[in-house]
């Protein structure tokens, strides 16, 4: 089974880097059978990236009012991302749109898990917050658990 992880984010916008931090944490774990990608969250790129993959996990920053570092795990095949999470990152047309566009075009992978990490700040030039760094490590473990070869 081919597993794919996509981390979304901008490295220069504080906690917006959350998805990228997960990608790096995941690479450090050298998981068997999981390909790791970093993208900016443009929907068509996302759809192209997961084309042909069987099991996909995506992580992105969200701002839905939860505590910084809180992790939301959503099964995107089951239905649209909750409105409170959709479009909350700095990528105006982002992950939620990619999921729905893929659904409309029958291009969703058989399994698609979304991890939304609550961000504290998207300030330009800021470092990611400690809460989000710690959450990225936890999400990396969860992704290994979900997608790694057993």
């Amino acid at each position, binding site marked *: 089974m081919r597993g794919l992880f996509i981390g979304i984010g*901008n*490295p*220069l*916008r504080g906690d917006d880097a959350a998805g990228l931090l997960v990608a790096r944490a995941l690479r450090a774990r050298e998981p068997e059978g999981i390909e790791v990608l970093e*993208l*900016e*969250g*443009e*929907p*068509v*790129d996302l*759809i*192209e990236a997961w084309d042909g993959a069987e099991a996909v996990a995506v992580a992105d920053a969200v701002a839905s009012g939860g505590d910084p570092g809180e992790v939301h795990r959503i099964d995107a095949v089951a239905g649209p991302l909750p409105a409170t999470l959709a479009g909350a990152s*700095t*990528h*105006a*047309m982002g992950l939620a*749109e990619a999921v*729905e*566009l893929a659904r*409309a*075009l029958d291009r969703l992978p058989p399994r698609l898990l979304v991890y939304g990490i609550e961000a504290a700040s*998207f300030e*330009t*030039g800021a470092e990611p917050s400690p809460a989000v760094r710690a959450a990225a490590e936890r999400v990396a473990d969860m992704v290994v658990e979900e997608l790694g070869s057993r």
Partner: protein
Amino acid sequence: MSRRRIETNYLARVEGEGAMRVRLHGDVVEEVELRIFEPPRFFEALLRGRALGEAPDITARICGICPVAYQTSACQAMEDALGIEVTGQLRALRRLMYCGEWIESHCLHLYMLHAPDFLGYESGIAMAADHREVVERGLRAKKAGNRLIEVVGGRAVHPVNVRVGGLYRAPERRELEALREDLERCREEALETVRWTAGLEFPELERDYELVSLRSEVEGEYPIDRGRIVSSKGVDIAPAGFDATFEEEQVPHSTALHARVRERGAYLCGPLARFELNRERLSPLAAEAAAEAGIGDGCRNPFRSIVVRAVEVLYAFDEALRLIDAYERPDAPAVEWEPRAAVGHGVSEAPRGLLYHRYEIDEAGEIVSARIVPPTSQNQRSIEEDLREFVAAHTALPDDELRHRCEQTIRNYDPCISCSTHFLDLEVERR
């Protein structure tokens, strides 16, 4: 007399977020504001003290949609400062990669963001259900654009193969040849797309813009990667003349700077301006398609920019194939250079219009100062003037309809707000 106020605090289908406010007093448009909240010129500050060779990769981070434009303008500004020029096949590769970016960026806007306005859908997603073939065509074209960038630039998002002086590695001819079949198919489909956009219904709006674009110094070449800066009112300058001709000013309602032609006012850059100032330089195929689409004699209706973008996509496929035909792998992937203290200017035609970079570097090759003028901030004033004219002519429309039309007016520009800012609210208000 009643006051109406139309606001949209979140503008969908633009890259970033934005706010627009239109205030009407009866039939009189009192105020039109496009508000852009620009973070302090973060990147210009970030660049100070960095090595000149880092500028292309750092500035490419400003925009996920047009990194090639940022890399190209940055490289050319540095090369200008260093007194070197990238020519021949190295320049052709730069242009080829840029064609990929035009295709990618224009197709995203055209199919996913702009077309839904004309077909009456809330979003590209809603449109995809009913117009699947059209959307799939857009995705195929965009993918072909991605592949071009990947083969020349090393990867599709934030190309890593670009450096001041050229590339780290020039592709083999066979790597480019492998793209041919896809590009030819997409060129065919791009022609269909021009015809398809020509059949859409366009609101009336003819504007008398001062149009600004590059003009290539190579005869018969449509401007993409370099050229002189020209305008419909007689500007004709080398890139170094940018500051003497254009100025940016602070306006109270936006933290982004507004650009204008000194002592004259607003101007327009982007596809419409490029097309109007250079349409005799399109390839025969693209020129014929433009004529068939009804814009062969010109186009000043910003709503028709979707047709112009479709023509430019067709041109980009045509031009990419021409460049691949003529490609011979250069002996060296880059021109060598030595740092020196100097100022350099670089311009290129980002998908949304003119992108100007200026750097001052010291003798050790460190950046002393950086200035970046993206197309969206140059067009901001024209967007507001479009809104003003459009609203004044359509005050009878109900609020919802007017709001939608105002949003569409802004989307004509494919405003890349991530270039000029990251969080733009859009609000239309009338009361």
